[in-house]
């Protein structure tokens, strides 16, 4: 399974909930699979998607807030796992698509082939932590996880991104802000 295949299974389960997408390929791929006004594409400030998602989750407890993150991005802002684990927002769902590489800059290795990101999340205090098994169905697993108490961490190992990258995020950054804020009001 590649990033694009995983997203095609994840996105139909997100409803109209806010989704914050990681910098680089992940934002581009999410936009390519299905643009929604509730998607917040983080084109710069790598690592910040999980902090942004947490800020939304704390301020809007009635909504389920999703972060679609990457391994390089989690490693860069690993401190935020501690903030999530300490505050324990029940409505925070952190999905990590882990290709063990910085795909946007040419597939250089990250550290996630060695470092167990799911164990890091568990140690920081996420309530529900799951690493998708190789023979497990992603849709079924996510549906099951959504019924459990958050904060939730789902780690999905994906294959290397060797296909042509999806186009860059189309909207201007300030337009992304405006569209997203209106959509999640």
């Amino acid at each position, binding site marked *: 399974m590649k990033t694009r295949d995983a997203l095609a299974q994840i996105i139909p389960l997100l409803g109209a909930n*806010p989704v*914050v997408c990681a910098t680089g390929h992940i934002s581009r791929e999410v936009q390519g699979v299905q643009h929604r006004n509730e998607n*917040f594409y*983080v*084109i*710069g*400030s790598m*690592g*910040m*998607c*999980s*902090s*942004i*998602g*947490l*800020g*939304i*989750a*704390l*301020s*809007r407890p009635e909504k389920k807030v999703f972060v679609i993150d990457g391994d390089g991005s989690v490693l860069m*802002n690993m*401190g*935020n796992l*501690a*903030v999530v684990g300490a*505050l324990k927002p029940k409505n925070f769902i952190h999905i990590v698509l882990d290709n063990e590489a910085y795909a946007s800059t040419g597939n250089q290795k990250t550290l996630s082939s060695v470092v167990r990101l799911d164990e890091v999340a568990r140690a920081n205090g996420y309530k529900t932590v799951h690493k998708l098994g190789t023979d497990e169905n992603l849709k079924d697993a996510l549906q099951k996880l959504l019924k459990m108490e958050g904060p939730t961490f789902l780690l999905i190992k994906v294959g290397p991104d060797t296909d042509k990258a999806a186009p860059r995020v189309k909207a201007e*950054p*300030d337009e*992304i*802000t405006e569209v*997203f*804020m209106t959509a*999640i*009001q």
Partner: protein
Amino acid sequence: MSKNWSEELHINAKNYAGFLKEKGYSFFTGVPCSLLGTLIEHFENSPEFQYVPNVREDAALGLATGAYLAGKKACVLMQNSGFGYSLNVLTSLNMIYKIPLLLIISYRGYLGNDAPEHLIMGDKMTKLLEDLDIPTFIPSLETLEKDLERADEVIEKQKVPAVILIREKIFG
């Protein structure tokens, strides 16, 4: 520091928190500095304020950005050492996405009178902010409320982050 002096700092903090509340700020996060000590203490001890202790200044900006996107007015507190960590998030998130945040930053190294690790940032602080076109206010005790009003006006009008630099003997 005498007891009276410490009491005075607490009164300043309490009053300032009141001004922030009046302006509608309801979400606070940051990394502490002794110069902001009484203000953060006030947030932590008052249930009417939501203050999230953060791990790093850039992550605090990210968190506050989320709160803003969800409809809140948000404020980040930090020492100016953490301003270095913040540069990328300010320039590649807050400024281009038009995310207006109020940044209350302590001014360590002001006039070169501080520990060695604060001297360079203390010296370059206002130049950096000017180069980045970030509206900056450096209040005295007397202009705290007025400068907050002016910063808030810029934030509301221009949808950009604005900085209030806090020198010593105001909140700590």
